[in-house]
């Protein structure tokens, strides 16, 4: 018997059964018809499937759905605030396929930064680093964009960070 699980996705509650082999990504896309997170590799190598689970960014293709019973999932379709508009203004995408993952990752970056988490390029670990280009690039490097929209993506994250702290 397939186990039952309950998830909240972008504010809506879903109770469903699923094959224990099903990834969170496939559960969202195939079972619940929530296709905002994308499948670029299914192996944790591209970031297209990034969603927020209980506030943290995770690769949903590497997450077995049954391990997340009761979790709160946010996809790019559920992200409000300055990020979506900033991505559009900065033209931080072209084909749009990596974009929902980038937006979720960006939301994660803003939160991690606000908590004072350093990255590998943070020079001074005793102080909260400024979210400059190098910090953003490093923190966003788990999300590949074959269209090469990185410059726009960084600009969008910077703009959204500025808007958040204002």
């Amino acid at each position, binding site marked *: 018997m397939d186990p039952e699980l309950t998830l909240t996705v972008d504010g809506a509650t879903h109770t469903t059964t699923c094959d224990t082999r099903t990834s969170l990504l496939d559960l969202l896309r195939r079972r619940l018809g929530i*296709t*905002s997170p*994308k499948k670029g590799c299914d192996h944790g*190598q591209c970031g297209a499937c990034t969603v927020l689970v209980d506030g943290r960014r995770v690769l949903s293709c590497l997450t077995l759905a049954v391990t997340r019973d009761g979790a709160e999932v946010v996809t790019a379709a559920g992200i409000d605030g300055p990020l979506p508009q900033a991505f559009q203004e900065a*033209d931080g995408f*072209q084909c749009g396929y990596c974009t929902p993952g980038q937006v979720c990752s960006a939301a994660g970056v803003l939160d991690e930064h606000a908590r004072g988490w350093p990255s590998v390029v943070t020079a001074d670990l005793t102080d909260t680093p400024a979210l400059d280009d190098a910090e953003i690039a490093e923190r966003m490097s788990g999300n590949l964009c074959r269209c090469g929209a*990185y410059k726009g993506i960084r600009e969008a994250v910077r703009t959204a960070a500025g808007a958040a702290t204002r």
Partner: protein
Amino acid sequence: MTDVLEPRAIGRDLLRRDGGLKVRGTAVYADETPVPEGAGPPAYCRVVTSTVARGRIVDLDTTAAEALDGVQRVLTHATAEHLASTEDRELAVLQDAEVGFRGQIVAAVLADSDEIAREAAGLVEVRYAAEATNAELRAELRADRTDLYTPEKVNAGHETDTATGNMDDALALAPVTLERTYRTPMQHNNPMEPHATSALWTGTHLTLWDSTQSVHRVRDTVVQVFGLAPEQVRVVCPYVGGGFGSKGTPHANVVTAALAARALPGRLVRFALTRQEMFALAGHRTPTIQRLQLAAERDGTLRGIAIDVVEQTSKVKEFAEQTGVPTRTMYAAPNRRTTHRLAALDVPVPSWMRAPGECPGMFGPEVALDELAVELGIDPVELRIRNEPEVDPETGRPFSSRNLVACLRAGAERFGWADRDPEPGTRRVDGWWVGTGVAASVYPTIRMTKSTATVRREGDRYVGRIGAADLGTGAYTVLPQILADALGVDEARVDVLLGDTDLPEASVAGGSSGTTTWGSALVEAAREFRDEFGDDPREGDEAAADVPPNPAEQEYVMSAFGAQFAEVRVHADTGEVRVPRLYGVFACGRIVNPRTARSQLLGGMTMGLGMALHEQSLLDPRTGAVVNHDLAEYHVPANADVADLQAHWLDEDDPYVNPMGSKGVGEIGIVGTAAAVANAAWHATGVRVRDLPITLDKVLG
């Protein structure tokens, strides 16, 4: 001369019309197509692929797979329907027991869930009589192979070989000569959206929601392969998650999806390639070996230029990359030669990847020019300027516009080239060797011969229709800008519908031809519309037009040009290569939308950076397998690889190309980038890397 449109909407940096959907992830891609009303529950397709490079299937056991609960069908060459046409061997899926490359589809499993289909595919047992793949002969590209052949034509209909004057004499007589061999590796397009199709066969009609750069091309192919009437097949594709050429022509996955749908009438069948499968089934850029010869006067004037190219194709189907073609246009020299030779190997079928021909074909020549500049003690920018031709060197025809020199000068100015010390390996900053390099870019201005558009008045809006594609290029945004100016109305009142064979036939989104071709058809349709209905049309008034021929194409050579400047840092101890600055300046006609055009140019340059530093598909010649067949091992640039990247353009008014004055921006950005980086890496270290990518083992030399 064409009547160039008065730009009102054209030239504005409007936001992408599909941006809101894309940032939320609600734009619908092929694999996400909702189950249509009346269709049964969706079925999922997974394939089994060959594990030998060449041979025959002698036994294929599907018993265990078929016994699995939830499996609907297992298609093999014994059970799949016979296709009406197997002329295109790449598309002759499951038709016989022959295996022509590793990774070829040998069975397809259809099941009620993706998990079951995947498990069942793993249960299919295949035995092959493998013809031993001799390491020497089967899958290894070398210039000294004895079985190289001369293709009839190369891609895009270009001549295979050309010659002017006498190159041998030029080499014998010139005071300075240079002969070098350069290599570019096998590469894979790797759009972020894997090739995918959702397919539904109702018993009489086939609908394919396919990720493609050309819905009409997919339809025509499927019609032919399955022997259907065009009215029986509809192809729909509102959004494409990138393609860069790999979705320009239908591959075996599309035929498989159609086969699968026809085996399960009434059910929507979903088939998406895995990332790994894409390395065999979605095309690749052929590796190239380029022998360059230059003959020059001491002042840098070229007396001769020659490129002899060797590259691979597949035994299954020929694809001949036109790598030598840009050398025919770039620089003046009375004596010239270009040739192409192919090795047909037991490898997957090569195909288009962003700027086929120009992209690999501007690596060898642009590094060779840098080497010549060093040899002569002439600045590499200056050397290019000295060899600027007045007319197209091979045909003698004038250029409709050519601003390479202006790009070189403007780029040098922006980059701060003037104070450059030409000595290599002399600048060390914080443990990094620092250098700068330059290379030129070129891409032809292409107008496809067939495309039709309609314009219709609907409510208080104007709706253009054309079955074109927006794979991130901005067509959804740019085409309304063009149509608005052609109609003389506000852009906000104009829509253009794309991506469906129910719309008028459009050419492929390839060859940087989209804006030029579809835009020309829309402008023509708008003219018809205004002629017929004046400025006050009524509801439902409609006009149609084909893209008109451009007689100026007979008189002029039309091309975009550019110059790229790179700063490279190479770590003195580890050999790590970084590109802190990469600036491109382009002359590519009038820019219809600066925001989307800049993204196209930056995206091309980013892929060029990947070509320079990261990308190579490692084909094991013994097995015919690409061993690094995923995104963890086939490296593409990540965010932190891209530093100060800038794309600029010059104002260029070309009255001959088309009514928009556009030349196309999708591909030129990738052309020349790798050469600029390689030249800068030499300047940093003194090590000349002639085979891409520029990895640390090569610069540590």
